[in-house]
């Protein structure tokens, strides 16, 4: 009995997915405890133990692995509640952190202010030192200046220190010297030197990332320490792994050192989970969408790999660490509907959140939210929301929509609710366009895996707008990310900036750089007890044509480097440039420059195997639990449609849209344009009417 548990701590709920060799996976949800999230986590483990008829102390030692996604760093950054941090930087550039290259994101909005820096100016200490663009010393490090900075930090009770010097990507010597001094004088401070964390070019990106790491470090370290202690107390003897933004997991000790790598710890598991479900259907590509209470996340998986961005932003702070490319927009069950000055209906981004929540929660919310519209339209059952634990106030929802939307627009309540539903779907479809069309992909070519409590109610209309013919709604859709965590591999990313032309590359130096990074990777994988056979190394290069400003990242086989095959590497670059931008300069013979060398060390983990159901025929009537009147979104007509119990559906059941499939934590609306087949893994495959060929492979599995 090998038990693995994926745990995703969210704003409202902490989700658990428990897998075991000898039983079906089970889902648990407990209320989150934002003060110390590890309390909610242990509460959940207690529930799981109880369900197995055991005490927590009996159950804990039987857990083999816990994979954990945390929002500790995300929340600290969003609420600016991280550690008091000091910065040591090269004299002359101490304001780069706050300037953010002089951007104002909203150009017509003179009330839009800069985001406060994570380190105030008086704690940004300049030191005399200078390296040139190749890392050659122009001015030695002034030790006195470093000591003065340390004195300042001590007197200000600084908890974390970041060190970032000009051109240190090319030579980390000065930073190392300064770091040793800080470590000696301030042994308890959380310390990050930029050349350790991210030795890559672009000062502002490296600086901002280094500061984010130190700023979040103490909180994450304290949280993981507390969690480890709690788990030890209850007798857990297995392996704890922490989810990172790059879609990989690491040991807690590693996570504590690279706190900034956990900023997308929660949502990063989404695309991994999506891939898992898509692969079950023989698909290597998919879109994943996750609609929760306040936000909607969209991401893409291509050829079996979630798309990775090498830089991005969190709360307008730049971060240049590899992370899954996830587009988040303010659309969720709590998104509030309102009418602008021109009389146009809008949805969000303001959200009713969990408190007071939508009007129908009856907790004092007065503004009509998306969930209220879904309820009025009949897509949600007033008595079976959250498995019946929360009774929904239909009349309250109707009244709020009538007053705030329907009357001002001169519509009926149902028309107004349908309007809210359509507008928010359009917004979410735009989010999906951003992760697809913006990157040159056609969303129609990808199955869409749907997650989040509110996602399955809206997926069909997003799909219809984008003409997506196939959607997969996993039975675990409401705890999607917890599921993804159990499917993640161990991943460690390393980067070195090394500017030079491929034409006259120093192969020995390139080999040495790769060797260094591989050594670091091996050390981490050793610590994680990953056997050699389960290790993989992926080399990526960031290159550009001479005089270009932006680089293109592409994967290069390590063998090509071993063979010193410049032509092969260049051919890969030309091809990727052509794919992204529609042309290459291969014929013109324009020189190609390397900017960054990246190595990812991967430790392959064992994935949970899902039980396969046996075929139960096409007739869904055993799962039929009743009928309900809904507004069919395509036509606006009132219609009575069948309601199925999603926990009773079996492999092979065919459900004709429009219909509703209810589960305890989510509800699927199959609209009039779609039909649905239940697959052998308990997922729901929703496909465009008349496109049976899309689900034939599922049905063919009944033979086996």
């Amino acid at each position, binding site marked *: 009995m090998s038990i693995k548990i994926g745990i995703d701590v969210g704003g409202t709920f902490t989700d658990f997915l428990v897998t075991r060799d000898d039983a079906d996976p089970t889902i648990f949800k407990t209320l989150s405890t934002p003060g110390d999230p590890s309390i909610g986590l242990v509460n959940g483990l207690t529930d799981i133990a109880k369900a197995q008829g055991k005490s927590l102390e009996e159950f804990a030692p039987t857990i083999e692995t816990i994979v954990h996604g945390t929002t500790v760093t995300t929340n600290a950054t969003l609420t600016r509640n991280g550690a008091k941090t000091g910065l040591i930087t090269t004299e*002359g*550039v*101490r*304001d780069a952190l706050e*300037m953010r*290259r*002089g*951007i*104002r994101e*909203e*150009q*017509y*909005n*003179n*009330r839009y*202010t*800069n985001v406060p820096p994570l380190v*105030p*100016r*008086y704690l940004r200490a300049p030191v005399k030192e200078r390296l*040139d*663009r190749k890392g050659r010393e*122009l001015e030695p490090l002034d030790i006195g200046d470093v000591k003065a900075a340390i004195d300042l930090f001590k007197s200000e009770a600084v908890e974390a220190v970041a060190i970032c010097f*000009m*051109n240190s*990507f090319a030579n980390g010597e000065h930073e190392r010297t300064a770091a040793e001094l800080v470590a000696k004088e301030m042994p308890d401070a959380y310390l990050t030197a930029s050349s350790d964390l991210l030795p890559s070019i*672009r*000062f*502002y*990106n490296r600086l901002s990332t280094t500061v984010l790491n130190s700023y979040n470090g103490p909180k994450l370290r304290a949280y993981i320490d507390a969690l480890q202690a709690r788990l030890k107390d209850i007798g857990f003897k297995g392996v704890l792994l922490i989810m990172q933004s790059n879609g990989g997991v690491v040991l807690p000790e590693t996570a504590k050192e690279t706190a900034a790598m956990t900023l997308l710890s929660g949502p990063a598991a989404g695309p991994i989970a999506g891939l898992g479900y898509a692969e079950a259907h023989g698909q290597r590509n998919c879109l994943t969408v996750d609609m929760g209470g306040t936000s909607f996340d969209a991401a893409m998986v291509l050829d079996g790999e979630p798309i990775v961005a090498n830089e991005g932003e969190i709360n307008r702070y730049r971060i240049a660490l590899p992370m899954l490319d996830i587009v988040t927009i303010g659309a969720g069950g709590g998104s509030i509907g309102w009418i*602008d*000055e*021109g*009389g*146009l*209906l*809008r949805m969000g981004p303001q959200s009713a959140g969990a408190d007071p929540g939508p009007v129908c929660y009856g907790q004092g919310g007065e503004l009509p939210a998306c969930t209220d519209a879904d309820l009025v339209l009949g897509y949600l059952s007033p008595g079976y929301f959250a498995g019946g634990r929360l009774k929904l106030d239909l009349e309250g929802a109707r009244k709020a929509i009538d007053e705030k939307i329907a*009357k*001002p*627009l*001169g*519509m009926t309540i149902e*028309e107004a609710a*349908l*309007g809210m539903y*359509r*507008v928010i779907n*359009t*917004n979410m479809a*735009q989010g999906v*366009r951003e992760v697809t*069309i*913006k990157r*040159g992909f056609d969303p129609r070519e990808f199955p869409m895996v749907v997650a989040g409590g509110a996602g399955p109610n809206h997926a069909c209309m997003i799909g219809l707008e984008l003409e997506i013919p196939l959607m997969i709604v996993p039975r675990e859709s409401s705890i999607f990310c917890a599921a993804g965590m159990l499917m993640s591999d161990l991943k460690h990313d390393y980067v070195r900036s090394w*500017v030079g032309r491929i034409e006259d590359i120093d192969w020995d130096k390139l080999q040495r750089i790769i060797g260094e990074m591989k050594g670091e990777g091996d050390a981490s994988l050793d610590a994680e007890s990953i056997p050699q056979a389960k290790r993989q190394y992926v080399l990526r290069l960031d290159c550009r044509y001479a005089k270009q*400003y*932006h680089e293109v990242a592409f994967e290069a086989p390590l063998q090509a480097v071993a063979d010193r095959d410049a032509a092969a590497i260049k051919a890969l670059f030309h091809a990727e440039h052509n794919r992204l*931008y*529609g*042309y290459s300069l291969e014929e013109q013979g324009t020189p190609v420059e390397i900017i960054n060398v990246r190595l990812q060390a991967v430790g392959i983990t064992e994935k949970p195997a899902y039980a396969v159901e046996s075929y139960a025929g096409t007739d869904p009537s055993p799962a039929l639990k009743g009928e309900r009147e809904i507004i069919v979104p395509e036509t606006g007509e009132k219609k009575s449609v069948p309601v199925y119990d999603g926990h009773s559906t079996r492999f092979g059941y065919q459900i004709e849209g429009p219909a509703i499939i209810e589960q305890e934590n989510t509800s699927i609306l199959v609209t009039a344009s779609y039909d649905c087949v239940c697959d052998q893994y308990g997922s729901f495959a929703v496909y465009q009417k008349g496109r049976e060929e899309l689900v034939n492979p599922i049905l063919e599995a009944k033979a086996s």
Partner: protein
Amino acid sequence: MSSGNGTNGPKGAGGGDIDPILLSVFARAFKSITDEMSISVEQTARSPILCEAKDFVTGLYDGEGRMLEQTENLPILAFSLAPVCKYIIEYFEGDFKPGDVIFHNDVFSMGNQNNDVAVFRPVFFEDKLVAWTAVKGHQADIGGNVAGGYNPNATEVWQEGIRIPPVKVYDGGVFRKDVWDLIFANIRFDIVQEDMRSQMGATNVGARRMVAILEKYGLDVFDRHKLALFDATRKMMEAEIGSIPNGEYSGEGYVYYDGKNKGSKYTIRVDITVEDKKIKFDYSRTDGRTNGFVNGTYTSSASATALTLLQMVNPDIPHNEGMLSPLEIIIPEGTILNAGYPAATTFGNHLCPPNADAIQRALAPAIPDRVTAGWNNLLSSLTTGFDEEKDDSYVDIFFMGMKGGAGAMNGTDGYDHIGMIDASGGVLDQDYEMFEQQTPHRLIKHEYLEDSAGPGQWRGGIGIETIYEIGSENTQLVCFGDGDFEPAFGLFGGGDGTLNTLTLTKPDGEKVVPLNKDLITGVPKGTIYYQTAGGGGGYGDPKKRDRKRLKEEVRNGIISEKAAREQYGLEE
């Protein structure tokens, strides 16, 4: 679904049913079309002016050239495409076929700047011309006397670049090689051809999306809702204008040095009339044109007017025809803002700051809570030379040095280090390390400048101080800008910001202070470049500034103890 009889819901101007929800869907869809076109250019263009500084605009227009939506990237381009679309329709007298592609840059037929070359593509549906997609971008070169287009010595348009009145480079889908070659035979760099192809591609992306929408909803529904959308937007704009008290308001802004006559000064005068839901900007009393390149075109100047007004209204108003319809802008030909044929006009976009000054000063008494104090004006430089270590030439526009502070407004400090109002934070600093990779220069300092912000209850945005060492022999330096004679002005008791300054100190100690429009050659390696970009103007009495905030600023070295005492009255 049918519309009800509500009092506030939008109505179709042409009769027939309007679905308020579909209206929202269309508004979002139009924006996503121009956004997608913008992404397409950003990803495929090569010149850093396009892919880094994003100096381009994409637009979607109806068959009559009325603006459906725009993605501007830089606010100064807010009004630069729409007038051209209408001009092109007039010019060809409606003779358009599917597959036509039209180029245009001519500043004497509604263009805004020679380097800004537009691509227009008519969109047909069911054999009818129903829409236009367009992209206008600042090209790396446009011919003329000086590579790159900034020629401080120009007195006529032909010394600045090639004129392209509306011309079809594709005629009914057939490529006109002769026309193409004629244009590009007059432009220095090949990448301009590539960048124009990138713009053409983007208009195609937009056209396909537009046709998909028409196929889905039909022309009739589109037409009705389009008019209703204009109507809804016009109402939003009218509501904003309606909140400005009726009356006549006048203001001035000043231009220092025309590049020819030292000590010269020109005045921009605007007379604004607000009458209920309409607003009129009349520049008839503005000084005459210069005999250099410090002149505007109607389009560049009207664009500056529009962007300044747009910063005073709800930033969420969609940018379509309805937004523009309550505006009237009169700029007589022969003035510095609309120089007329055949004047040189490349500096025209940079007449935006003094134009904005005139408008803010005029409207300050009427809408004191929506205007800002003066913004730091731009003073920019461009170096070209040879990087010996890399054995290659380089060109650098020194974006990071030119970005001073924004003007404060009631309730909000000016944005720090934002740069000229024409861009409003859309043009970014080079990354320091990339700057040192791409030029032989070495950055010494780039930091906030203490006491640069105009004091006030709400202070101006902070200016900056920049120092670097020039790393090439025989370097050429071009200066263009202003703001070294008059600082950003304060409002309602707020103080002025600081001036822009620029000084070169050669290795032998000789100091050179370039004029604000200047061309300096032979600058030796080791020369120290020193520049300050001033702070923005303050708003309201500095003595009323929040003490906690003020003390933090003193602690952070943004405001000196002396200034805190003397200007802000801080007692300790």
